[in-house]
């Protein structure tokens, strides 16, 4: 638990709430499994009642019941849907097309330009010829499609030095690539990552360069702690500030969504 004045909450809960605050009422939003789903449905419960939420499974109009769904198609989220279609519909017609306002994805590794690796961990560079990773991860899933197509997307990731690297070994989902307007080369429908929300704070891309810099820290963290846990020389925004702590209402809404307390386990 974090040592703060207000009611105790975990770093994961702060991360979920900070992510949820990035999502606005009425938006068309897509969530992945786990943390990202909790953050998204927290937003819907707390301040975005008209959020048009979906999962890449093509599950529409539902809200999880009985706790964190085991997957985007889990019965916990399929039990009160208004529509079931398909992955091609959700990720293609609604996300890859550029129609979706915001998506939330996770990362095993993220770099200074918001490129995400969820494919594997290699010992050093992959090299000219592709080779299997030392540690195989979960692959791109729908995150690549969200990163290419959603008008903007949020990256949720535990703030650890090994995860925040100068350059990811493998780009599973494109951020700003080499920075600047490198994305333009590919004509992506989507605009790129608008924020990296971590267990310690919030990073946002700098104008022009699109290099991520420290925008805000949490009440329980600090600029120093964040710099120490970032694997590249992280720039600090001139307007860096502390993120307001969760309100009692926010915590209540989050914990209602996180019925099984996934975010309260340390």
């Amino acid at each position: 638990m974090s040592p703060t004045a207000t009611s105790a909450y975990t770093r994961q809960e702060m991360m979920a709430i900070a992510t949820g605050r990035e999502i606005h009422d009425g938006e068309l939003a897509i969530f992945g499994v786990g943390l990202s789903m909790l953050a998204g449905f927290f937003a819907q419960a707390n301040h975005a009642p008209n959020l048009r939420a979906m999962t890449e499974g093509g599950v529409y109009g539902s809200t999880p019941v009985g706790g964190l769904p085991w997957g985007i198609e889990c019965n916990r989220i399929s039990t009160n849907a208004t529509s079931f279609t398909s992955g091609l519909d959700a990720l293609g017609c609604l996300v890859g097309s550029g129609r979706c306002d915001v998506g939330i994805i996770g990362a095993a590794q993220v770099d200074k330009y918001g490129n995400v690796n969820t494919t594997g961990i290699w010992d050093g560079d992959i090299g000219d010829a592709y080779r299997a990773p030392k540690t195989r991860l979960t692959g791109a899933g729908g995150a690549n499609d969200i990163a290419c197509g959603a008008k903007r997307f949020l990256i949720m990731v535990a703030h650890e030095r090994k995860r925040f690297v100068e350059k990811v070994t493998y780009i599973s989902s494109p951020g700003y690539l080499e920075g600047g307007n490198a994305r333009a080369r590919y004509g992506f429908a989507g605009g790129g990552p608008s924020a990296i929300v971590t267990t310690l704070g919030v990073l946002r891309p700098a104008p022009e360069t699109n290099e991520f810099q420290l925008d805000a820290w949490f009440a329980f963290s600090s600029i120093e702690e964040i710099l120490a846990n970032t694997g590249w020389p992280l720039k600090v925004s001139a307007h860096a500030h502390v993120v307001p702590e969760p309100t009692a209402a926010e915590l209540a809404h989050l914990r209602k969504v996180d019925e099984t307390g996934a975010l309260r386990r340390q």
Partner: protein
Amino acid sequence: MPPPKLLSLAEAVRRYSWDGMQYASGAALPIGSDAVVFGRELLRQKRKNLHAIFHCNSQQLNLLAGAGAATRAECGFTGLEVFGFANGLRRAVESGELVLEDYSNLAMPLRLLGGALNWPFVPATVNIGSDLQDRSAFAPAEFPARSKIATVTDPFTGRQIGAFRPLKPDLAAIHVTLADPLGNSIMLGTEWSRFELSRAAKRVVIVADAIVDQACIRQFPNLVRIPEIVVEAVVYWPFAAWPQSSPGMYDVDEEHMRTMNGALATSEGTREYVRTFVESYRDVDSYLDMIGGERLALLGKTRTAFLLDPYRKWLLPAAEVARRQQDAETR
């Protein structure tokens, strides 16, 4: 009226699968509807060198990879969602026993759609500009790997985009909630990419949790997204997706999801799992006994049960299904 297509699982695997084939299943999600039991039977019949086409990994691919039956795979997602990494697949990839080609969860259904439409390529506006396009496990020396995801020029604007290779698997084993004896199939819950797969595959075997009278099909033709004209055979197998879930039928078996994935983390564990949960049953009844009546009852108490209500009155009793299956097999 065409003849019924009910087949035993063993017979369906005997007739429609072979070593080295391109095998697609469920167009599944890791927790949900997938013909997991078909994968168990592939192991029982010692199929090997399978080239697996799985939109997402599932416990079926996790098992086939962990047991060494699949040596190539193409996937969009390779984990088990909240259940974590897929240990069997992971071990096979890290050891080099299985070569895994990575795509995204949109790329896979688009490639199946391209196969269904018999297109030479499918336009790609995703996966481009990332290592999904530049790196190929099937052509490791090639960088950027344009034989995997090529570039194509839009003739209207001159703009360059990507091009996917269409997929036409030799066989698809597709799990559905309900099917009639001819193969007209109803899915409850997301289709994920079962519709596209049913048209892309050269052959389709339906694995259904329950068989319904055709009267049900004619009452709900708009629910029949897989018509019999694209189906070779229908296998009746309750809890066919276990330990995964089937909306309207049963929930995910959380404990066995962990047990199974735990076992698949080592080759010893995998051998033991195969002995206990793959080679141990003789038929549907002993398969259900293996899971255990108490657990079946628990899994069947799903919040989604109401989704099945409109169709219950047409469910055919197991004995009736067995009778029709015998007729079909002895033709």
